[in-house]
């Protein structure tokens, strides 16, 4: 799933660059929205890490099997 997050972050940044190049006066609004959007996408990648660590250290499936 991480490559999905990477690809979409690249697209988001590229689109934001386009928008800023077209309208430099609204750069602050665009970059704030970009940051929030990037954080949302980043969370998807971070979820993978959290799930991996959960499986490593606090695996709920291992407790079910005797």
């Amino acid at each position, binding site marked *: 799933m991480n490559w999905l997050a990477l690809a979409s972050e690249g697209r988001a940044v590229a689109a934001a660059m386009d928008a800023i190049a077209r309208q430099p006066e609204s750069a*602050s*609004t665009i970059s*704030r929205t970009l*940051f*929030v959007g990037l*954080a949302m996408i*980043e*969370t998807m990648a*971070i*979820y993978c*890490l*959290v799930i991996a*660590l*959960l499986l*490593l*250290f*606090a695996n709920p499936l291992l407790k079910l099997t005797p």
Partner: protein
Amino acid sequence: MNSPLTSVTLFHVGPVPITLPVVVTWAIMALLVLGGRLLTRKLSLVPSKTQAAFELIVDTVDSQIRETMRVEPGPYRAFIGTLFVFIFVANWSSLVPGVEPPTAHLETDAALALLVFVAVIWFGIRAVGMKGYLATFAFPSPIMIPLNFLESLTRTFSLLVRLFGNVMSGVFVIGIILSLAGLLVPIPLMALDLLTGAVQAYIFAILAMVFIAGVVSEGQPEPTPNLAPNPRTLP
């Protein structure tokens, strides 16, 4: 390798175990409260250099609230500002040798996310009343009630996991690199970690603002820019 999901217990107060992140949180709280007390002890209309520097922070928080929420920042300044400053200081507390940021543990982040969850309800009821707040759940149409209800829970959870994942992954990666490569090698990663910490504090505050604004924004006047002079100051 230690699990990032557990934390070291230092001592017990009665039956309650007090862990290391809790003690670090207390230290940060004491630092912020005492620092705030010291800085606001001698406020003057013509600010000194220190006062001007810290007024800049308050001004930035105000302008962010005004731009993001489209309301006057008065009632929200304290909550949003405290959230931002606390998370910022907590994330950067890894600069002190031997201190692990308390936000790298699930419990601190859960407390912060719960605060935002409660604050959305509190500010919503204060701004639009109990009826108006409940009506926001049925906002586009009553069909959306289950989804909106679920969203208010999942976004709290995602706030918690986002902050925890970002800060903890920084600490974790530094630990791994340190064990593999040795001294001084993880310094660039630590710099990146500081950047992530600052951005995550900002994001957390912005998202809290967006969630509160989603409930509050109806029925509030647009902020008026300070163009008209205050009539009382006119001769």
